[in-house]
């Protein structure tokens, strides 16, 4: 009887030891590559680089802001905002290189000391040379 208890205890210790040996260290969480989550346009941005109020119609004297939300990480990623007018003319093209370690907000803006020509415009966002989205807006 006494022997049985000893055997059981020894078996339990053996099982626990084997289980402990089998337990693998959890791998570090995979870091998701950077992606563009959203693009918003507005007249103002807050300190967090988000537009205060999303809109697609602007006045001729407005500064136009685009807030690009990204998720994921990158040691170096190139975001480009290309603004074009309805004639196909390039209004402005700005590039920003970032190294996000998580969700981030990147803002691009255009301003013009003389009134904007009225009409339709398009903002195209590129990430590392790939088109990742566009937003149409109007100046009235």
């Amino acid at each position: 009887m006494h022997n049985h208890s000893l055997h059981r205890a020894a078996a339990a210790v053996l099982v626990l030891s084997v289980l402990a040996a089998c337990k693998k260290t959890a791998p570090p969480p995979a870091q998701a590559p950077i992606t563009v989550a959203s693009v918003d346009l507005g007249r103002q941005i807050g300190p967090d680089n988000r537009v205060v109020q999303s809109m697609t119609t602007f006045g001729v004297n407005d500064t136009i802001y685009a807030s690009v939300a990204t998720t994921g990480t990158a040691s170096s990623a190139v975001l480009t905002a290309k603004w074009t007018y309805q004639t196909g003319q390039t209004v402005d093209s700005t590039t920003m290189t970032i190294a996000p370690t998580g969700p981030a907000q990147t803002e691009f803006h255009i301003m013009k000391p003389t009134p904007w020509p009225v009409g339709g415009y398009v903002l195209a966002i590129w990430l590392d040379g790939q088109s990742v989205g566009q937003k149409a807006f109007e100046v009235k």
Partner: protein
Amino acid sequence: MPDPNKPLPDFSDVQGGSSSTAPQPPQPQERTYTVQKGDSLSKIAKAFYGKANKWKVIYEANKDSIKNPDLIYPGQVFRIPQV
């Protein structure tokens, strides 16, 4: 539909800009090297880049202080760009 007879609008005075909450990647630091007796641009290129034929990279980056790439002098400090 834009009127083809209308002159194109002028966007030359547009000012663009950007900023981000994400950090910017670190700028690669430029190294410098002080020329020692017996050095040549090829020798320095071999030491830094592993290839002697990259001497022109160092030459181009230091043209202001190298008149003749075959003549460099001990004590000269050269910028060694990243390649």
